[in-house]
């Protein structure tokens, strides 16, 4: 009897620790070296803090603002997540229509590209005029930035679905919607997640730009306040927080992709162990 898959022995914890160390140690070392170099530079040349604050000073600024930061982070993350949600919803909806109706593709695709050429710094203030200082305009900015990569990569996935597989389900009596459900949508899942990852990487930035133009809470507002009082160290705190938040969002999408498309990771890990 052949052993069933899944009964494979997992690598020992020690081996896995070694694997992670090999993967994450070099980038971590590089980061530490850069921060140390930056600190040394500032101290050696006595750079003014409003020009370039030392990492140690940024850390102090972080400790000062520890109390107010979580509130701002919550606002920005809520806007980012909501925006991403709508970006995914609209993105997939548009992708399905574009993939199924050639006429819509011809009409809509150029328009979508145009929508991406409008600079956000022009659009964001307008959105605030239209929708007020609440969360709405920020969510719209995030969705506008995020839906495009989702549409493009999902359309790719839908239209590149295996034609022979489409033929097979049609031979089983599947009509257009069933073909979509049984073949096209599952084929598009990996592409959808690729687009969602790009959208996630830009989502926090989109929300911050929206807040920057006006609002009552959020990291964008935090940055505005820091700038008007020449607290460059606090601006740096916000920059680091935005970077970490973006990475967290990206990682969350990555995990979601792993859970939603497990078959892709099966083939990869099998090849990896050979």
């Amino acid at each position, binding site marked *: *009897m*052949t*052993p*069933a*898959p*899944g009964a494979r022995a997992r690598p020992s914890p020690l081996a896995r620790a070694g694997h992670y160390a090999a993967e994450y140690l070099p980038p971590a070392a590089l980061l530490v070296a850069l921060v140390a170099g930056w600190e040394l530079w500032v101290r050696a040349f006595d750079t003014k803090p409003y020009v370039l604050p030392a990492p140690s000073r940024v850390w102090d600024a972080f400790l000062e603002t520890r109390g107010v930061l979580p509130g701002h982070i919550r606002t920005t993350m809520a806007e980012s997540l909501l925006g991403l949600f709508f970006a995914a919803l609209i993105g997939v909806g548009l992708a399905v229509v574009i993939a199924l109706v050639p006429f819509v593709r011809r009409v809509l695709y150029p328009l979508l590209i145009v929508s991406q050429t409008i600079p956000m710094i022009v659009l964001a203030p307008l959105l605030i005029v239209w929708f007020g200082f609440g969360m709405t305009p920020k969510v719209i900015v995030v969705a506008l930035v995020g839906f495009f990569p989702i549409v493009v990569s999902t359309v790719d996935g839908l239209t590149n679905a*295996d034609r*022979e*597989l489409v*033929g*097979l*389900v*049609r*031979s*089983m*009596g*599947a*009509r257009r919607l*069933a073909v979509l459900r*049984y*073949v096209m949508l*599952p*084929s598009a*899942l990996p592409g959808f997640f690729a687009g969602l990852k790009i959208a996630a990487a830009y989502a926090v930035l989109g929300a911050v730009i929206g807040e920057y133009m006006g609002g009552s809470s959020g990291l964008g507002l935090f940055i505005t306040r820091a700038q008007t009082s020449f607290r460059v160290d606090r601006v740096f705190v916000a920059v680091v927080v935005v970077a970490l938040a973006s990475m967290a969002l990206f990682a969350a999408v990555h995990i979601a992709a792993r859970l939603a*498309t*497990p*078959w892709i990771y*099966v*083939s990869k890990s*099998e090849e990896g162990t050979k």
Partner: protein
Amino acid sequence: MERNREPGRSVAAALVAARASQTHAPRQPLASTRDHNARTPNNPTQQPTANSRHMTSAIELRHISHAFGGGAVSVLEDVTVTAEPGQFVSLVGPSGCGKSTLLRVLAGLLVPSAGDALVDGQDVRGRPGAVAYMPQKDLLFPWRRALANATVGAEIAGQSKHDARERARALFPRFGLAGFERAWPVQLSGGMRQRLALLRTFLVPRDVLLLDEPFGALDAINRREMHRWLQEVWAADQRTVLFVTHDVEEALVLSDAVYVMTARPGRIQARVDVPFPRPRVPSLVTDPAFVALKAQLLTELDRGMPPA
């Protein structure tokens, strides 16, 4: 393969049960035109009805011609193939002669340049959904585990997912797939993938099966085992089968009739009836009558090849 397999009866019974519970979705064009009495000629207790004398053929390809590339490459020329309800009919022919193309016509996926294609008397040109079709490639769904792959056809036909999975699970051991219910297709061997594709085709609730070289990826031992299994199941529920193969012996062991095709452009070189009684035993292949018929088929195949 599993040594300790279930007795064939119960497997066959499971498949009959699977078909009994089939829901005839409204889009299935043949549900109303069925003549069920005509489909059980082996059942002596059933009286033939008036209908059965004028019964329509299960499969009828009439004067099919096809050319790809806007008429540039002629692939099929005036091909006529008929299978009566419950018959097992094979197509043999050299590679590239258009066997798969012919099946695609019957599956409704390809409209031929000329000719008629009927399944149970209904025109199927460009109208998929009338048959259970197993393409030459296994075409498993990468995103479905093995068990879920087996039940796709049943699900699309509107059968209960749960019931379909239970029926498929019961058949896994017989297909040498025991223990692999939760495996992804990439984790299966070529032969396992093909057996899974065959199982999936059997679970499509249609009365006509089109099998395109279903045993192409199997070794000789596995093949014989599948031949035995296929005969058993076919005898139990008497679906019409159109079977494509390169293997003349395989065609003879399984079929009621064998069509021999010429090299491209494919034409019908000969139709040979296979009279051996069923169930056919493995020793049949050494029977002089069998050997003679095999020689005849091989001669016809040679005649259909272009002059060297």
